[in-house]
């Protein structure tokens, strides 16, 4: 069908609108990558206003992986945190989700209320901090994976999914003498790969991105995850800028090197996200939708 008149104007308008938005969204990402690949010499030589480096260099990345050993450590902490945190959180979410979706299990209703109330009300930063301290987890790796293990929202999503599974499969299994635990592992989980994948990916992304809890609980440098290190670099940069305002502005060599370093770290902080992104995209619509709307 040929577009004419107002239809054509409308299509051109929304095309340009969407295109502009894509550019606004994409340009900063491109610029960050470019800055991380630009040497300080080239930056100054070309008058600072530049986008694509003509002589791209990996020196900022090399610096991260050679000079500053603690940065590699923080990358490791982030990775371990993501793996352990996600497996703890996902297993408890699936299990609680299974329990609250069982209509014939005595005690489901109070349990459901217990879960729902954690979504509605929270103990606040300081009380949680004191409890974590009392539990002996302060300044340990576990403070990043145990206190946030149970996520009420995800349990609600799971419950929604589990209660929509066809009941006759379960009934058949029950008649065949499969116990409730066997039912969970052999019937329910294999039918729920989509929700497991989407919740797992979301939880993993959250763990990878988290820094606030680490800032509150972790004091030892070698236990700090990557995002927290990035945050502290930002605070340090601000402090030095405030302390010697004029000097630091002219001290462009030091600035530009920390510039490319910071951007290289930023890129490293997003690479895992970009790697799982295609999978996220496949599952997230489902996850969001079941999470937001009661069936």
């Amino acid at each position, binding site marked *: 069908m040929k577009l004419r008149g107002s239809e054509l104007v409308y299509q051109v308008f929304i095309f340009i609108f*969407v295109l502009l938005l894509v550019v606004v969204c994409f340009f900063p990402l491109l610029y960050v990558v470019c800055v991380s690949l630009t040497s300080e010499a080239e930056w100054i030589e070309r008058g600072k206003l530049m986008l694509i480096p003509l002589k791209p260099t990996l020196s900022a990345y090399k610096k991260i992986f050679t000079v500053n050993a603690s940065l590699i450590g923080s990358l490791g902490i982030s990775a371990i945190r993501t793996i352990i945190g996600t497996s703890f959180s996902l297993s408890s979410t699936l299990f609680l989700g299974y329990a609250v979706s069982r209509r014939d299990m005595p005690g489901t209703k109070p349990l459901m209320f217990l879960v729902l109330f954690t979504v509605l009300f929270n103990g606040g930063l300081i009380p949680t901090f004191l409890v974590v301290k009392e539990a002996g987890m302060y300044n340990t790796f576990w403070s990043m994976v145990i206190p946030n293990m149970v996520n009420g929202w995800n349990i609600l999503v799971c419950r929604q999914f589990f209660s929509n599974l066809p009941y006759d499969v379960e009934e058949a299994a029950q008649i065949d003498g499969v116990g409730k635990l066997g039912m969970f592992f052999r019937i329910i989980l294999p039918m729920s790969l989509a929700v497991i994948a989407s919740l797992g990916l979301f939880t993993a992304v959250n763990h990878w991105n988290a820094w606030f809890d680490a800032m509150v609980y972790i004091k030892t440098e070698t236990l700090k995850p990557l995002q927290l290190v990035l945050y502290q670099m930002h605070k340090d940069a601000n402090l030095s800028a405030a302390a010697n305002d004029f000097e630091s502005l002219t001290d462009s060599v030091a600035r530009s090197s920390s510039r490319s370093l910071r951007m290289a770290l930023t890129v490293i902080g997003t690479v895992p996200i970009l790697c799982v992104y295609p999978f996220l995209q496949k599952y997230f619509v489902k996850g969001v939708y079941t999470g937001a709307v*009661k069936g």
Partner: protein
Amino acid sequence: MICQSTVKRNRTLCRMKDYRWIYLILMVPIANMLLFRYYPMLVQLLLSFKNYTIKGGIWGSVWVGLENFQKLFASGQFGTLLVNTLRISLLQIVINFVPSVLLAIFLFDLAYSKMRSIAQSILYIPHFFSWVVVYNIVSVIFSNTGYINLIRESVGLPSVSYMMDSSFFLPLLVGSNLWKSIGWGTILYLAALTSIDTELFDVAKIDGAGPLQRIRYITLPGILPVMVFTMTMSLGRVFSAANTEQILLFYGPANYSVSDVIGTWVYRQGLGQLQYSLGAAVSLFESAIGLCLVVLSNKAANKFAHVGIW
């Protein structure tokens, strides 16, 4: 085993026996929930009415009644915090709402489907970035040596310190949030749009309805329930949409008068300056109001949009 006893008590017992292993494993997440979700709630309640000292701890510190709350309400600071929290939250909610709806409609109407899928892939990405990463991206664009200021310098304009100046705090905060979540915000609307009967659009076209008329009479009514749902649900977030993590990155002492919210104050003053009781009192106040708001908004969503969280 299938429990078929006609006596209710026997049936329940039989079912409990059926589920015995489930109960056993459930102990772990339930214990975790009680310790790290419910125990802090109790501690919050206690601390709010006590004067916490390191020596006394949670249980040994003395009761002071409403003193913490009196102190809070008497200090002018609390009013500022409250106003800032509400202002930032409302701005975040309102400014994120309309662009996402518009974008969803445009993406849905876009005839060139290749552009649509490219746009969707790219616009969703920032949602998955951490706030630290987003802050770094913002700073490389807006800082004194950022891209915008380099452009300004190259055409002879003086540089502007967007990151430090308090008048740019709110635009940067809200703008970066919009940048991060505009694409993601379309998902619910797009899902609702695809469930509209396409025949309606075809018939409207034949009847000579233009694009704007189609939006007015078909598209908007089609996603109205979802719009009502998100709007009523965001009523429950008028306290919490001022994202503490984001503000902690973007704010600084120079702009505390507009940027300091309840969450950041509790972190800085409560945790940092060891004012545990005051901090607990503030967050109790916030959580209690938040609870009422969420319950109310869920009621409203159930009533007006016929969906809710429970």
